[in-house]
């Protein structure tokens, strides 16, 4: 099957790219709308639990001393992390001229935007009085409510809002030539819709010249931004004195973790998508193989970071830190740490095998494990560290209640609903960049592992 797909890639033309992308955007069937309705239902369930929380207060959650940061902040870090791989694939790999990104980058960048939108909900959900969230914005007032710019939470506000703006503009700019292509072949309301969004793009030499420069510079800005945003998120924790969090390794460790979880989620989304939307010609096994190598590499970086974190605690011999890490390993919630190591460090080692990397079912299962593992990592780090902080008499393990669980599920529904709607109405694969690399794609398909194996 894989070899057959790769065979087809040898004859891939510009029109094939267009036809495949247009097939994805064809009017949706009942199954698609049922799926969107199911996602909307999850959003409604999460929304109703949040409404109850707003009315009755945070007491309806499992929150309480000493664990006042738990599932919501875990969700926030998880979704911000998910967003990062999109920027890595779309911007960082663009600067390195990595060709395999062309087929998956639009999907990853879309994921970035919706993941940041999802992440942005959680600091608000986490607030007891969410209607005052705007107090984070700096605006002149007479109540001494000017935000403290020394606070990592204020840094977070600036970092996340900049990241959301940059990612959205980066995605929107890349979409313009593809939307113009859709405008030229559509009819009815779609033609009006795409005509408005295309802004009159015609692909003249002057337009491409400015586009290429602006796109390059946006990629150049997005690259340090992606490193800074998750570093800033990590400083929310690392600047605290809480044992288990107060560590200088957090920034690089969080960035690597973000790329790891994000690439895994790209696999989770794109594997079923390429089958359901019939885009195997554009997103080939070779693309998935390349992406899974990034997952494997970042898994090794994560494993190294976990080891370094434990080594530093052992080397410093600080008794309170030692106790926190002992609890993390062997405490009442030690099984969560075990699960995290299994999912993030051991299972991804299977990706060393080329036959697993080129098997979509195995890849999909591994990517699900990585997603679970990375959520657990953030939970263990946040909730675990706060549960067993400095004074043992105050130790109390946090257990989430239905409110947090359903709001978390609702967030997944929100993300998947937005992503599914985008994929149906806007080009989820970049036709422009795929056409640019058609010749190269043919060549690499010939050299890919599945094809060589079949040959």
């Amino acid at each position, binding site marked *: 099957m894989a070899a057959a797909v790769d065979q087809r890639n040898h004859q891939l*033309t*510009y*029109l094939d790219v*267009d036809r495949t992308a247009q097939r994805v955007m064809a009017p949706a069937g009942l199954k698609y709308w049922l799926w969107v309705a199911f996602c909307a239902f999850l959003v409604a369930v999460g929304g109703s639990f949040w409404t109850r929380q707003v009315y009755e207060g945070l007491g309806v959650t499992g929150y309480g001393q000493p664990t006042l940061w738990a599932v919501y902040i875990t969700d926030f870090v998880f979704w911000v992390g998910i967003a990062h791989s999109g920027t890595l694939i779309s911007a960082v790999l663009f600067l390195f001229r990595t060709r395999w990104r062309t087929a998956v980058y639009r999907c990853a960048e879309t994921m970035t935007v919706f993941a940041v939108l999802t992440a942005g909900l959680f600091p608000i959900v986490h607030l007891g009085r969410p209607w005052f969230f705007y107090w984070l914005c*700096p605006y002149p007032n007479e109540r*001494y409510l*000017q935000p*403290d*710019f*020394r606070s990592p939470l*204020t*840094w977070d506000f*600036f*970092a996340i*809002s*900049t990241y959301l*703006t*940059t990612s959205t*503009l*980066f995605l929107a*700019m890349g979409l313009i*030539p593809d939307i*113009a*292509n859709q*405008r*030229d*072949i559509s009819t009815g309301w779609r033609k009006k819709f795409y*005509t408005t969004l295309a*802004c*009159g*793009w*015609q*692909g*003249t*030499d*002057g*337009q*491409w*010249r*400015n*586009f*290429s*420069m*602006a796109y390059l*510079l*946006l990629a150049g*800005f997005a690259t*340090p*931004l992606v490193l*800074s945003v998750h570093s*800033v998120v990590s400083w929310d924790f690392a600047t605290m004195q809480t044992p288990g969090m107060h560590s200088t390794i957090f920034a690089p460790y969080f960035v690597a973790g973000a790329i790891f979880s994000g690439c895994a989620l790209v696999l989770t989304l794109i594997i079923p998508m390429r089958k359901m939307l019939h885009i195997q010609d554009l997103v080939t096994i070779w693309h998935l193989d390349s992406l899974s190598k990034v997952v494997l590499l970042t898994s090794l970086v994560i494993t190294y970071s976990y080891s370094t974190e434990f080594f530093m605690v052992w080397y410093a011999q600080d008794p309170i830190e030692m106790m926190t890490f002992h609890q993390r390993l062997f405490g009442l919630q030690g099984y969560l740490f075990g699960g995290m190591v299994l999912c993030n460090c051991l299972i991804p080692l299977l990706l060393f095998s080329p036959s697993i990397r080129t098997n979509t079912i195995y890849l999909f299962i591994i990517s699900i494990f990585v997603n679970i593992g990375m959520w657990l990592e953030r939970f263990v780090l946040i909730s675990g560290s706060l549960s067993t902080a400095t004074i043992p008499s105050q130790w109390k393990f946090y257990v989430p209640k239905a409110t947090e669980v359903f709001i978390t599920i609702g967030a997944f529904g929100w993300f998947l609903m937005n992503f599914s709607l985008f994929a149906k109405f806007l080009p989820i694969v970049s*036709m*422009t*960049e795929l*056409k*640019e690399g058609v010749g190269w794609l043919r060549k690499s398909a010939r050299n890919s592992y599945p094809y060589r194996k079949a040959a």
Partner: protein
Amino acid sequence: MSGDIEVVGVFSSDLECAHAIEQLHHTPNRGFHTFAPFPSEHMAEATDEAREWGRSPVRKFVLAGGITGAITALVMTVGTSWEWNLNTGGRPIASITPYIVIIFEMMILFGVLGAVTSFFFKSGLPSFEPATGYRTRFGADRFGLVVRAAESDGAKIEALMREAGAEEVVREAA
């Protein structure tokens, strides 16, 4: 100019179109523009050489945006700290080191806004008037070269395009 015509050449390959652009200086013409479904390096090089274009002006707007963002953030953080001075543990009222994060983020934000704004501004977008010679195929799988010339020179340009490999050459009123 009255009496001018536009010769539209349709090419199936960007290399052929680039070759036609390179040959244009052998013919009397009053300007040209091209269409492509993706940013072709060959066509960009040929066009830049033919027009003696430097690099896109977008980068200047980006630089200006970045500098504006950094200065705005510096003024905002330091200025408002002095205005609402809150002594926390004897630390300086305006602590530059933690403000670097805000300055960095706003530099990026304004630089990005500069890039996108200047891209639209310099590319003449949004514009809902189609450029002359545009065909819907230029967004899909064909490359276009539109040359403006006096009617008497039209035949030379048509011959040049055919020689370069154009699969279709059409003459239109300018």
